[in-house]
């Protein structure tokens, strides 16, 4: 659908130009942006989703490009091959040799990690390479031993899923290549319980028993793993366990999120989650699909949310990233064929109805991957016009079915179906006959439709009118379909009047979105005016007396250009009507000059002048040598102090000799030294709070020690005095 700028024409009066060209573009740009945002916001409620088409298939070949004939890792190879297989593109022959070599190597070596073995088995499932006997046996026994110790959900998933795949592969090969391998889980119930222990009450799961963080992505993995456990269990598991799992699924659906256009998705709660919405939602869908397939009692999921999830993936479009592409296609493949409900998508190849071409409106209903839908009927319940939202133009019209192209079409429109924007509301009714699968559709699909037609422009004329008397000096009829050579002349005492009539094909009044009248002077100065529409008539009156200043007193030849445009108008036009000679008075001294028109029209979008920032000039610091000299000079008084002390004959004879006192004296001096050291560290790198904390500890220590030392000294000197 053509999206046309919705410019608000309510503010200016008819004879005022909006602004000269440069300012107009700014104003128009702002209104364009706000108009677009508004239009998008409104259209958000009604939008069309297309199923996977050939555009996707050709894009897949571009996205999944192998480097030098093979992929970087087995995981990427698996993603690429699975996506191409689902889309039905056969590229296997090109890549199979190199990739198969890799697969055989990984499966044959006993030192491959579980993840590599997982990816190798996945790739092998698609490519069906020839593998020797010994390799897989080691892997299988390794996996079986591993499951007993496995604490990680991922490891368990690897084990259960891939053993399930091995089982199918064994049946496919129809050879007893793996006679000794026992592909079943011994204690399935215990494993089930240990996995189930990782679940949380809000529906999310943890990755392992050590890691407390939980995620929705892990929930998807958990359900896939449990599906594998159920399918490999030799006996039926306790139905109460499965019941609790189903409750967990209901809880998980409580955390689903949605966009305004009706799409649902799962996303992680934590901001720094490694999985985005696409991979999280795909993981959940994979898990639920395999879980529903593995157990027999059936899974009941809310249908509207399933359709919403399908719409989410279809709404992604064509992802550029290989992982997103794989997740999208894999999830859609799961939705295409599953045990709970298969969503059907209603799509329109074209959302524009042309009233002149009289082609029918076509509607397609298909599954998400584009396959045929079962027998159903499509009804157009309402066609709501954007002008009158309450009443509907079309009511409960059933669409006819064309079996050759598998489309539903509506070929007859009522007589009062006018041009403009509509919202068509479709409803799909499935035929009652029993189907193998349960199909689900949206209750109502709202689609924005544009109806276009040829707008007839009549009675177009331009005239120069004397403003005082109102008499017409010269009047010319316009043929807007061709560029006329209308030549008019006017002076500043006269008015210019342009008028025309617009009618829709069925005769209603039509208000175009764009009706601009442009006057362009020889010196490239432009002025644009809006043509106001009232009812059927559109008229513009330019009073030159009031506009003289706005026209910058430029006399001379002005070219006239008229633009009429609208989304619903098939014959939008831009015509050069002709020119007008304007005779304006002389420019007085203080009048504004016309803005300089640059020769390059897009020069305003070029680079602007470079801004040179003025930084604070750093303070002038003294020369380094001077500072070092003074550092030396500062030390001199201290040296003088020491020299003076020695000259005085200072001694430390009264340092206590008994061990206890000596220790406390030493500790006292040590404590003071420690405090001074702390101060130095404080200056160098610590902050005040750390210092205060350390100081309080040291201070308390120093207090005790100092008190002891000094009291001992005091006692000693008292003894000396008394003695």
């Amino acid at each position: 659908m053509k999206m046309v700028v919705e410019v608000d024409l309510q503010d200016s009066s008819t004879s005022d130009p909006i602004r000269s060209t440069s300012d107009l573009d700014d104003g128009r740009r702002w209104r364009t942006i706000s108009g677009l945002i508004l239009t998008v916001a409104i259209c958000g409620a009604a939008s069309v989703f297309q199923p996977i088409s050939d555009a996707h298939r050709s894009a897949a070949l571009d996205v999944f490009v192998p480097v030098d004939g093979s992929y970087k890792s087995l995981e990427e190879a698996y993603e690429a091959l699975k996506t191409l297989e689902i889309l039905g593109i056969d590229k296997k022959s090109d890549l199979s040799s190199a990739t198969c070599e890799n697969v055989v190597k990984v499966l044959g070596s006993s030192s491959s990690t579980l993840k590599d073995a997982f990816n190798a088995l996945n790739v092998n499932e698609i490519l069906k390479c020839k593998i020797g006997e010994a390799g897989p046996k080691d892997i299988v026994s390794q996996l079986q031993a591993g499951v007993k110790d496995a604490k990680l959900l991922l490891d368990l998933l690897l084990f259960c899923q891939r053993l399930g795949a091995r089982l199918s592969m064994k049946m496919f090969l129809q050879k007893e290549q793996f006679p000794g391998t026992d592909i079943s889980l011994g204690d399935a119930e215990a494993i089930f319980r240990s996995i189930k222990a990782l679940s949380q009450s809000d529906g999310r799961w943890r990755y392992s028993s050590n890691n407390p963080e939980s995620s929705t992505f892990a929930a998807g993995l958990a359900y896939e793993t449990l599906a594998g456990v159920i399918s490999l269990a030799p006996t039926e598991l306790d139905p109460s366990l499965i019941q609790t799992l189903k409750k967990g699924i209901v809880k998980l659906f409580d955390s689903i999120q949605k966009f305004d256009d009706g799409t649902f998705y799962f996303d992680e709660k934590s901001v720094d989650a490694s999985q985005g919405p696409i991979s999280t939602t795909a993981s959940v869908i994979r898990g639920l699909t395999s879980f529903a397939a593995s157990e027999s009692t059936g899974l009941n999921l809310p249908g509207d949310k399933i359709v919403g999830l399908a719409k989410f993936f279809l709404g992604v479009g064509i992802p550029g990233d290989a992982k997103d592409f794989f997740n999208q296609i894999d999830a859609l493949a799961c939705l295409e064929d599953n045990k709970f409900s298969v969503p059907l998508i209603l799509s329109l190849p074209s959302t524009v109805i042309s009233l002149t071409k009289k082609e029918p409106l076509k509607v397609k209903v298909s599954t998400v991957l584009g396959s045929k839908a079962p027998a159903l009927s499509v009804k157009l319940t309402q066609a709501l016009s954007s002008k009158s939202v309450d009443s509907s133009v079309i009511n409960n019209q059933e669409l006819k079915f064309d079996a050759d192209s598998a489309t539903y079409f509506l070929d007859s429109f009522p007589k009062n179906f006018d041009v403009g924007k509509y919202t068509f509301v479709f409803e799909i009714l499935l035929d009652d006959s029993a189907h193998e699968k349960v199909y689900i559709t949206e209750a109502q699909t709202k689609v924005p439709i544009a109806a276009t037609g040829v707008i007839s422009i009549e009675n177009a004329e331009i005239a120069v009118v004397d403003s005082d008397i109102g008499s017409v000096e010269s009047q010319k009829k316009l043929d807007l379909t061709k560029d006329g050579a209308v030549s008019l002349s006017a002076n500043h005492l006269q008015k210019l009047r342009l008028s025309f009539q617009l009618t829709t094909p069925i005769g209603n009044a039509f208000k175009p979105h764009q009706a601009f009248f442009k006057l362009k002077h020889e010196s490239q100065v432009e002025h644009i005016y809006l043509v106001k529409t009232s009812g059927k008539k559109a008229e513009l009156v330019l009073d030159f007396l009031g506009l003289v200043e706005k026209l910058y007193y430029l006399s001379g030849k002005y070219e006239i250009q008229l633009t009429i445009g609208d989304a619903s108008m098939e014959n939008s036009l831009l015509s050069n009507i002709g020119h007008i000679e304007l005779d304006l008075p002389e420019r007085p001294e203080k009048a504004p000059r016309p803005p300089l028109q640059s020769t390059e029209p897009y020069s305003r979008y070029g680079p602007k002048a470079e801004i040179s920032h003025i930084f604070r000039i750093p303070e002038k610091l003294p020369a380094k040598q001077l500072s070092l000299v003074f550092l030396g000079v500062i030390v001199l008084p201290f040296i003088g102090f020491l020299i003076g002390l020695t000259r005085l004959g200072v001694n430390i004879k009264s340092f206590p000799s008994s061990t206890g006192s000596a220790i406390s004296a030493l500790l006292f001096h040590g404590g003071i030294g420690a405090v001074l050291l702390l101060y130095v560290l404080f200056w160098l790198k610590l902050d005040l709070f750390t210092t205060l904390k350390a100081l309080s500890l040291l201070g308390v220590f120093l207090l005790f020690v100092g008190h002891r030392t000094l009291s001992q000294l005091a006692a000693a000197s008292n003894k000396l005095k008394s003695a």
Partner: protein
Amino acid sequence: MARSSTSKDAQDLFHSLRSAYTATPTNLKIIDMYVCFAVFTALIQVAYMALVGSFPFNSFLSGVLSCIGTAVLAVCLRIQVNKENKEFKDLAPERAFADFVLCNLVLHLVIINFLG
């Protein structure tokens, strides 16, 4: 006559002061030397600032005030420790010294914080 007498008086004054000073106890002389050391350090800092300008003014203030502060505290210590001072007869010199150490530590904490 007057000039020579004044200069002779000044010399006599100086000599008498010097001889009186030698009688002071050693610990008071240590404190006096410490005060001189602190004041000299402050003077050198002021001279440096006069030379190169007071750009990190907080550092200058902190340095000078540290010297002056510790000089003041030493003077207080001297007053309290001096046996001829009747006011502080009952105060043990060790207690005065403990006060001196504590006040110095607090002063230097603030100084280091202000030094920047």
